[in-house]
Structures are given as structure tokens and as C-alpha cells.
């Protein structure tokens, strides 16, 4: 099992229903894409949040990454829409 801190922002957060959760992902989850597949099954809210993958941006340990980026125990993985600050 891989313990991960998962964070959601903006409409990802409102769909999932929480801004942060600690999850125990199975060992089959090796990268962010795998994590998204697994998270999707956790609730209808999760499913809705991850429905349009192309609209989801990813950060691992607060750096932008692509979906093929590996995840490891203790990582902070964040999901959010394209940024709209400034």
C-alpha cells in the first residue's frame, strides 16, 4: 500500500467534496494516471471530477507533472483545473 496525500482545488474540490484526503493506494498504482483510475472508483463525486482527464492539471510535491509521473509513498499529489489567477 502507498500512503499518499491527495489535494483538490477549484471545481475538482467541489466535485470530490473535499480539499484534501489521505489515501492508501494499492501497490498496482505506480503513476498519476494509475492513481486517477483508482481514485475515480472511490465515489460518484470522484468519478465526476476525473471524467474529463484533459481538463485536469497535476502537481506532485508542488511541481507540475504529467500523468505518467511516478507516485511514491508520502507524495503530495494535487489535482486542479487550469489556473486562472492574476
Amino acid at each position, binding site marked *: 500500500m502507498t500512503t499518499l496525500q491527495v489535494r483538490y482545488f477549484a471545481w475538482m474540490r467541489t466535485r470530490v467534496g473535499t480539499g484534501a484526503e489521505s489515501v492508501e493506494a494499492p501497490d498496482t498504482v505506480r503513476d498519476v494516471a494509475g492513481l486517477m483510475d483508482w481514485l475515480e472508483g472511490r465515489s460518484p463525486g470522484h468519478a465526476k471530477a476525473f471524467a474529463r482527464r484533459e481538463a485536469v492539471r497535476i502537481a506532485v510535491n508542488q511541481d507540475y507533472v504529467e500523468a505518467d509521473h511516478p507516485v511514491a509513498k508520502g507524495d503530495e499529489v494535487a489535482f486542479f483545473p487550469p*489556473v486562472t489567477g492574476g
Partner: protein
Amino acid sequence: MAVRVQREDFDPGQEMAALGEGRHDIGAVASFTGLVREEKGAGRISAMTLEHYPGMTERKLEEIEAEAHRRWPLEASVIVHRYGRLEPGERIVFVATASSHRKAALESCAFLIDWLKTKAPFWKLEEGAGGEQWVDAREADDEAAARWAEDA
């Protein structure tokens, strides 16, 4: 170099004065202030709430600022970005750059705001006539940022 992410308002004049405080090597200061603009058309007020990713935001802003200092000969710079609920007319963001040279100050200021818009983890939730809505990212912002891509 200074980056601040805060709920409170700021004073652009004070920020600019602080950049040049007691220094005589600065010939040019450029600044940009972003404000909440009232929705046109229906004349309705649209306030907004800015959400951000604490920790990553500061980190990204510091990276963007360091990048500006790498590209231009800057003497000083500052980035201030607010979060929380903001009403029309309120300031959202401020960037200022100081250099001996006018061109460096002007270009790096435009660079900072263009890059910040596509790289700093902020999200706007607008309150309009039809309820709350997350603002979509704009293609024009991506284009503005792409202008600063280096070939190297």
C-alpha cells in the same frame, strides 16, 4: 526579490517606494496592477473568490521571479497576490520590477504577469447573476505566456 501571498489589500505606491528605498542605481520602475472588473452588459456586480494552493503558490511565484532576474538585469522586484473574496474595483495582483534600464523593467514586468497567469496556482470563482461559476482559463493567456518561450 520579494513574493507575498495575502488576504489583505496592499498599497502600490508603498510597494514601488520600497523597491527603490535608499538606492540610486535604479533608473526605471515598471508596475502592473490587476483589479476586479465589473461585468459589462447587464451592469451587474460580480465579486469573486480567489482560491490558491498554499505553499505551491509561493514556490511558483518565487520561481517566476527568479526566472525574470535570470533573463533581465533587474535591481529589484516584487510580486503581491491576494486570495479570498474580492469585490469590483479591488486590487488582485501587483508586480513591479526595477532596473537601470527602461527596456528591462518594462519587459520583465510584462513577463511576470503573463507567466504568473498561467503558472501560479490560483483559481477564480465568480459570483454572477446566475450564481457562482469557476472562471475558465483563457487561450489568450496561454498565448501571452507563450510569447516568452525561449528557443533554447
